[in-house]
């Protein structure tokens, strides 16, 4: 709002200058470009006001203020062409007109080449614009004005030239002649540069920029034609040809203003559309989130939305899954406060209008930031879960290794030892009696117990049958050695990944450990999940935290349901491919 208020004086000044210029022209139509016709008046006002209006429109927008300033200035300069009129009355206005009457074309081309960011990106463009200002303002305007005395030149009606330093009309005329030659050069050069920009913009499908640059190039072309027509004369003059060219210039400048306004309004509409949809989205979030909203606005259903996560710049979607933006033909970064908040990947040519992109980024900034943070949290959660799963897996692997070491090491040794003892006894059987015989018997029995205990120990550390045969034989084996009846129900035929088997088995073990009256176990694959269900007829307390840790490490869930008959159902569910 504050920004808009400061713009009102500029608009008002533009209106006033336009009306004043029209009055000047009407006072002395013969020495003007607009002449006495209504068409001329309309062209004069329409072109100047279009530029001032378009400039004001851009001044109100962050990031485009420079171009806005240049365009507004060009609008004023357009009017100044008529201020060299001898009947203008005011010496100040006359002097301004004398010095700045050719400033419009450099300003317009500067604005268009710098559109929309306000900076001239290429050296050739910087050089061309510098030459244009020097030629148009200095060589054609200010320098001749220093030496041009109206009375010496034969204009007795003219007001005073406030800039006059020395009365050297010939020098002034020579400078103007040079200025016209220069003018033809720089106007052609700028027209060429604008055409290059136009070709680039058209190739990239930037419709709005194309329109703007076409109008700009046409204007510069007409300016060049005016200079070309004035080469013999050596100064700019309002002859019949020049007046027709001037009308064309006016039309081109109106088109420039219209193109700027159209782009601006389109971006604004997109902004309010995005803002509305973002508000809507906040009220009722959709699973597809902002991506769907932006896809709808941009008009590309397959649009990808990636959020940069971490320092490496990896892109993830709202769910935290990795996104490959290079799979789409074009990528656009949404930048806010110098930081890329999101990257859009879309069909070619859709988002080349930087203003539109900026507006979208501005409108969706909070929502984008919000979704990006959520994605970030999801990624971190997933990392955490993966790390938990790795810890559990490392523990399992260690237990498995320990079990195998016991089996292949200690247990084998003990068996070999028992065998050696047996051999010893058979070799000496005739002579071993009394105490020695009893010692041998004791050792034999102890060894047998040790073997049995070691077997139980290693089975408790990790049941090899679980790795070899899966959950079904493992539960079967558990049932064979259990304290309470374990009913082995239907088991899924296709084995899930080992980590899930181990976790599911841990749940069964815990249920069997606390059960007082027996349990029934069955397992199945359903809808992308592996589910193991344990029915227990009593409600002994489980170590649910430990189970949740175990199952949660695989992104699974444990639920305990209390049935009507006083029993419970323990259900562990693991996400698992089909």
């Amino acid at each position, binding site marked *: 709002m504050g920004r808009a208020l400061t713009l009102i004086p500029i608009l008002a000044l533009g209106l006033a200058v336009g009306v004043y210029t029209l009055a000047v022209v009407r006072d002395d139509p013969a020495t003007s470009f607009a002449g006495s016709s209504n068409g001329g008046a309309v062209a004069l006002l329409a072109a100047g006001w279009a530029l001032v209006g378009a400039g004001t429109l851009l001044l109100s927008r962050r990031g485009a203020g420079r171009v806005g300033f240049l365009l507004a200035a060009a609008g004023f300069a357009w009017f100044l062409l008529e201020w060299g009129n001898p009947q203008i009355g005011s010496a100040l206005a006359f002097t301004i007109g004398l010095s700045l009457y050719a400033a419009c074309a450099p300003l317009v081309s500067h604005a268009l080449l710098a559109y929309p960011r306000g900076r001239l990106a290429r050296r050739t463009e910087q050089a061309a614009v510098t030459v244009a200002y020097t030629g148009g303002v200095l060589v054609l305007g200010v320098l001749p004005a220093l030496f041009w005395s109206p009375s010496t030149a034969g204009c007795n009606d003219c007001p005073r030239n406030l800039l006059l330093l020395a009365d050297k009309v010939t020098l002034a005329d020579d400078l103007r002649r040079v200025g016209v030659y220069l003018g033809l050069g720089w106007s052609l050069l700028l027209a060429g540069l604008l055409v290059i920009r136009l070709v680039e913009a058209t190739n990239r499908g930037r419709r709005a920029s194309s329109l703007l640059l076409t109008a700009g190039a046409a204007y510069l072309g007409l300016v060049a034609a005016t200079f070309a027509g004035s080469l013999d004369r050596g100064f700019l003059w309002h002859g019949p040809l020049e007046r027709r060219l001037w009308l064309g210039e006016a039309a081109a400048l109106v088109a420039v203003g219209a193109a700027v306004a159209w782009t601006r309004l389109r971006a604004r509409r997109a902004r309010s559309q995005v803002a509305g949809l973002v508000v809507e989205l906040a009220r009722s979030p959709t699973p597809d989130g902002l991506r769907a909203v932006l896809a709808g606005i941009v008009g590309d259903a397959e649009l990808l939305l990636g959020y940069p996560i971490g320092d490496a710049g990896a892109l993830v979607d709202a769910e935290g899954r990795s996104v490959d933006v290079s799979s789409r033909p074009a990528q656009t970064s949404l930048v806010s406060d110098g930081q890329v908040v999101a990257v859009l990947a879309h069909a070619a040519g859709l988002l080349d209008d930087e203003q539109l992109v900026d507006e979208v980024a501005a409108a969706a900034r909070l929502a984008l930031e919000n979704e990006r943070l959520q994605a970030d949290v999801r990624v971190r959660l997933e990392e955490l879960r993966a790390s938990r799963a790795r810890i559990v897996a490392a523990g399992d692997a260690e237990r498995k290794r320990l079990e195998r070491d016991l089996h292949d090491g200690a247990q084998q040794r003990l068996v070999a030892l028992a*065998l050696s003892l047996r051999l010893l006894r058979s070799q000496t059987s005739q002579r071993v009696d009394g105490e020695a015989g009893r010692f041998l018997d004791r050792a034999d029995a102890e060894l047998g117990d040790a073997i049995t205990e070691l077997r139980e120990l290693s089975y408790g550390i990790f049941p090899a049958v679980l790795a070899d045969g899966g959950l079904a034989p493992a539960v079967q084996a558990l049932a*064979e050695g259990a304290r309470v009846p374990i009913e082995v129900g239907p088991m899924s035929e296709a084995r899930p990944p080992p980590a899930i088997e181990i976790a599911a088995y841990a749940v069964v073990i815990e249920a069997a450990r606390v059960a007082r009256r027996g349990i029934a176990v069955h397992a199945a694959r359903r809808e992308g999940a592996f589910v193991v269900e344990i029915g227990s007829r009593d409600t002994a307390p489980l170590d649910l935290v430990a189970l949740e840790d175990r199952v949660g490490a695989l992104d699974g869930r444990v639920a305990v349901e209390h049935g009507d008959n006083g029993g419970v159902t323990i259900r562990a569910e693991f996400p698992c491919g089909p």
Partner: protein
Amino acid sequence: MRAVIADDEALLREGLARLLADAGVDVVGDAGNADGLLRLVERARPDVAIVDIKMPPTHTDEGLIAAQEIRSTHPEVGVLVLSHYLESHYAMRLLEEHPQRSGYLLKERVKDVSVLVDALERIGEGECVLDPTIVARLVGRPREQSPLDELTAREREVLALIAEGHSNDGICRKLFLSPKTVETHVRHILLKLGIGETQDYHRRVLAVLAYLRS
């Protein structure tokens, strides 16, 4: 009787060979892994191969797989798998596919020469052998109300012997009972458990085992 031994532990192979030799078993070769065993069987054509379940390279069930292969390719060669595993799962993998001339004993039986030789002889006669400890676990496992509860102590004894793979004659000798009495016990047991009577010895063993495991 001619036997070969496969175990990755050399000490155990040697000790076992000596014990068996003392008991009158002719040990005609040994091997340290499954491939060596298969070549040895091919060459020596023993009556029975004694195979440790765990052998290189993975030390899981190579012995079991080799035993199954021997039973498939050399039907006249019996196999006795020695295993640390008490779970019936491994034994059933062997017996369900090849009940004839197959045996599964716990590894520590190697020191009970009489048990070992008895098992080898029964395998030689075409029977199947299952370790008594494994069977005892199956018979004794906790159950919800079950027809097993209705068996007499003697009938449970007979049931266990059937599951261990003993024939009626073997059961007679073990329990010092007359063939007629054993036949009556067997008939009662199968009736009470609802297992259809079958004259086929191997089918009877598998039916009883399946019942005990379910």
